[in-house]
């Protein structure tokens, strides 16, 4: 198992955001993390990407602990944050090259990668546009491309398709399907059709705890529901009564 999460917990003052999360994700797996607003998805991603120290627990990412050796973990992953994060006064191409270079690419290498990704994300025409002049969806695409340019072994996509138009969303799905099996993808989203189209396995979080885990079929079987939406509603309602 390349990601092994062990009783990972994060507490803010007296609010438990992530509660004893234990979970393993395999090499090249496409894992979807679902949950209502405030369930703890982003907090989990922040801990796994070494942006936040866990209150307790640990996770081993490709052999390195996020607590003991975050610097080694960081080299292997990249993240597309929930809020788009691009440099305002840099052009699309400069943004991409900048990220490639802080992950260790040479100048030429960074340039080639940037060109390839702009092509892939339909940003080639806007190569010279400044970050602050992009539309919301363009900015989102750039933000995802920036997460991919370092060619990470593990990528975290926190609600990547918010604000994308229909074609851009389908294009992103295709890009992700092509990457499937090669790198480990951890995705959070509130669009369930996305999960059905892409995910190998689904984890449903509720109030910081992992409520359910399995493939789409397994979850359907477990709940006796036919649609993922009903699976989701049932599993997140059950937690309410406990």
């Amino acid at each position, binding site marked *: 198992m390349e990601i092994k999460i062990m009783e990972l917990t994060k507490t803010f003052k007296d609010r438990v955001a992530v509660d004893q999360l234990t979970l393993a994700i395999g090499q090249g797996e496409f894992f979807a993390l679902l949950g209502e607003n405030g369930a703890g998805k982003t907090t989990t991603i*922040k801990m796994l990407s*070494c942006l936040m120290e866990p209150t307790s627990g640990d996770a081993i990412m490709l052999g390195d602990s996020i607590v003991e050796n975050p610097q080694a973990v960081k080299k292997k992953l990249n993240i597309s*944050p929930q809020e*788009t994060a691009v*440099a305002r*006064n*840099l052009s699309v191409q400069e943004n991409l090259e900048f990220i490639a270079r*802080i992950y260790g690419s040479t100048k030429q290498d960074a340039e080639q990668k940037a060109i390839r990704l702009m092509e892939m994300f339909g940003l080639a025409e806007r190569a010279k546009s*400044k970050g602050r002049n992009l539309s919301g969806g363009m900015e989102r695409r750039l933000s995802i491309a920036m997460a991919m340019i370092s060619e990470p072994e593990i990528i975290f996509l926190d609600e990547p398709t918010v604000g994308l138009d229909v074609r851009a969303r389908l294009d992103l799905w295709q890009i992700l399907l092509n990457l499937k099996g090669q790198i480990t993808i951890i995705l959070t989203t509130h669009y369930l059709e996305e999960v059905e189209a892409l995910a190998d396995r689904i984890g449903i979080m509720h109030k910081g705890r992992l409520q359910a885990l399995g493939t789409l079929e397994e979850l359907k079987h477990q709940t006796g529901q036919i649609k993922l939406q009903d699976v989701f509603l049932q599993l997140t309602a059950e937690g309410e009564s406990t």
Partner: protein
Amino acid sequence: MKALTFAQRNRKEILRDPMTLLFGMVLPVLMLWLFSMMSENMPFDLFTLEKLAPAIIVFSFSFITLFTGMLIGRDKSSSFLMRIFASPMAATDYLIGYALPLLPVAFIQMSACYGAALLLGMPFTYDAIPAFGLLVIISFLYIAFGLFFGTFFTDRQVGAIFAIFVNVTTWFSGTWFGLEMIGGTFETVAYLLPFAHAVDAVRAAFAGNYSEVFITMLWVIAYTVVIFGVAVWGFRKRMRG
């Protein structure tokens, strides 16, 4: 290497904001010109170019604090900082990357103000060369304040704090009037802060009174080290969430 890549990004981010240049260069030069005109009708010598130009250069450095603080504050609020915190850059890479691009800005400000002072009739002396060196050291104090504000406050708060900061730095440094004119507690407080020492040191250096430079610079350097230290501590803390 990573620090330099990051510094390059920050340089672009700062210099591509035209307001930056406008405020950082034009305002100090304008002040220099206005006050030197006033000095012609003044009975005392505070606004002679020899006293005014060094103080105005130090005044222009307070914009460095603004640029640094705003840049970091904005990177925080746009979660750009979060994205690069996930990268393998080390804490020192960030601090070098944020501080380095401000040195050429400081140099341009120094040159603009000094050039304007020469045009307005200040005589050239070779003492200007070591004085420039001194100014580079002093610019680190203002960079450190920028790192400090940017680390602990949001970009909006930095804007508000700057309004206070620029007043504190000028009023308590004897830029617009002599501190001994007021004296008392005001003067005591002013000399507990680093700004008056910075202005005194630069004035002394431009005048060639090097014996006066040493003690005043100790104040400036001590403050720089402490503020830098606190900023680094806060920044590292933030990196760990």
